[in-house]
């Protein structure tokens, strides 16, 4: 079974490919380029096409599938209506699925399930990464705020931190938020670090 994965995010596409490669008898093709997409699909002649919901080529692709219904390998949006739940899950995960007409549901289901899991895993990875980046940025801000307090009020580093923490506990906010406020106020006063 030939599966085409269309995704402009090369890193996500490789996560999906890796997952689908576990399926027996499947051959996975990744397309990340917008140019020449239809020609590439024609060349591959896939049984299943996976495309992320954020892909700007979807309408063009659906148009091609509609036209292709007249040719030998018609591709349809959905298998049959009994698969509504599975399709809903794929939309939730952020991927849409097109299959060649007549492909048995029993063969599509594992592809769909894997794609959904992989998309979900990628989204979690992305969220973790964003969180880690956020944490790093927060640490930077706290360091900056500490330096401002140390310089401006002649505090030691532990005291500067204790001061931030005391203020945070008092106002029910996070230390990072207090630090942010200190840095912003400092910038507004036009003082350089």
């Amino acid at each position, binding site marked *: 079974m030939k599966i085409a994965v269309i995704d402009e995010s090369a890193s996500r596409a490789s996560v999906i490919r890796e997952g689908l490669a576990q399926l027996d008898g499947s051959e996975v093709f990744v397309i990340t380029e*917008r140019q020449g997409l239809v020609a590439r699909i024609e060349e591959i002649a896939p049984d299943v096409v996976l495309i992320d*919901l*954020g892909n700007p080529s979807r*309408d*063009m692709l659906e*148009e091609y599938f509609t036209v292709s219904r007249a040719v030998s390998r018609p591709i349809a949006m959905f298998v049959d209506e009994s698969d509504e739940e599975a399709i*809903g899950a794929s939309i939730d995960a952020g991927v849409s699925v097109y299959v060649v007409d007549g492909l048995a549901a029993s063969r599509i289901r594992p592809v769909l399930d894997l794609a959904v899991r992989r998309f979900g895993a990628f989204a979690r990875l992305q969220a973790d990464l964003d969180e880690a980046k956020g944490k790093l940025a927060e640490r930077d801000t706290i360091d900056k705020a500490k330096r401002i307090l140390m310089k401006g009020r002649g505090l030691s580093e532990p005291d500067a931190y204790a001061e931030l923490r005391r203020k945070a506990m008092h106002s029910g906010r996070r230390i990072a938020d207090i630090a942010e406020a200190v840095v912003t106020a400092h910038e507004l006063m036009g003082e350089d670090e």
Partner: protein
Amino acid sequence: MSEHLTIGFLPLVDACLPILAAEHGFAAAEGLELSFVRDVSWATVLDRLLYGHSDAAHMLAPLAIATTLGRGRPAQPLAAPFVLGLNGNAITFSPELAAAVAAPERRLGDPDLIGRSLVIEAKRRAAAGRKLRFGVVHRYSSHNYMLRYWLAACGMAPDVDVEIATVAPPFVADALENGEIDGTCVGEPWSSVAVERGAGQIVLATAQIWRRGVEKVLAMRESRLDERRDAVEALIRAMRKAGTHFVDPANWQANAAILAGPRYLDASPELILRAISDRLVLARGTPPIHYPDFMFQHREAANFPWVSQAEWLYTQMVRWDGLTFDAQDAKNAARVFRPDVYRSALAGTGDLLPGASSKVEGSLGQTTAVSAQQGTMVLEQNSFFDGRSFDPDDLPGYLGSFSS
């Protein structure tokens, strides 16, 4: 307690009414909280609507009908209780094609004259082995239908003499630039983006093809409309107020700035202002021209979902999908447009409500008074450029008139 609705949209100027209803507090005043989901393809806007990520969506009117009739995927009944606007699209050619058909740079072309030159150019290009290619935003779009209506009325067979492909609005300028397409019919600000890049020249406004052509609708799943009926009626009232605000010249700048924001169109406010103010720059470096009612979002009960509009769209679907007329499909298509909901939302607000729910489209050559629920209302000229009119009481007759 405030009700919440999530609305899907594509970054186009005619997504303005729900956005401005939220931004200016008209929705909040109706006890509504709105959030928005922006996408880059109609397929995804539709998926989100069908699988419950959104409650309502900014949608191509023909796509709402196609979805209801099960064209391209299993049928799912959609309902459109509000028309988001009429027209607002331009037909834009590459500078080479614009020159070949002698399109003027300082005024919009004449649809007949340009059409006649285009027939000759299309033949020449086909004979040279490369047909003219046009990009439209979707198979089921008024852009596709308006373009085809015009080409066919000028004597072309759109599926034979030229090629019509789907190109996503944000890539239209690229496609014109790299020669993938020679022309397009697209909503703003995307023609203006092509003009600014020197990749395109605006040749016609769709309002020249059909002076009052139906464009986007607010679409919902029929079942969701029933479940959220009160919230939807509140949204309709809020969008009517947003419309009053939108068409007031005093607010044009501010509204262009809001729509240009990163959460909405993420585009240049100057280009958005051109569509809002009906002042278009047709070719790069030329002064703007004023073409009244390029976009038509409010006056003359522009948001009223006339059943006859849905029926006209159905006839075009039959025409261009090569279907045979089916009375049941026609009925189902007509039922997508929901004037009953619109009326019920605005009853007692003093807003203009037409007396009828259907009208002969394109029959008014001049300003005409028609009956409203209270008193009369005035409708301006609404003609098609070829002088035909559309009688919703005789769809097969109308369809037959094209085959001769």
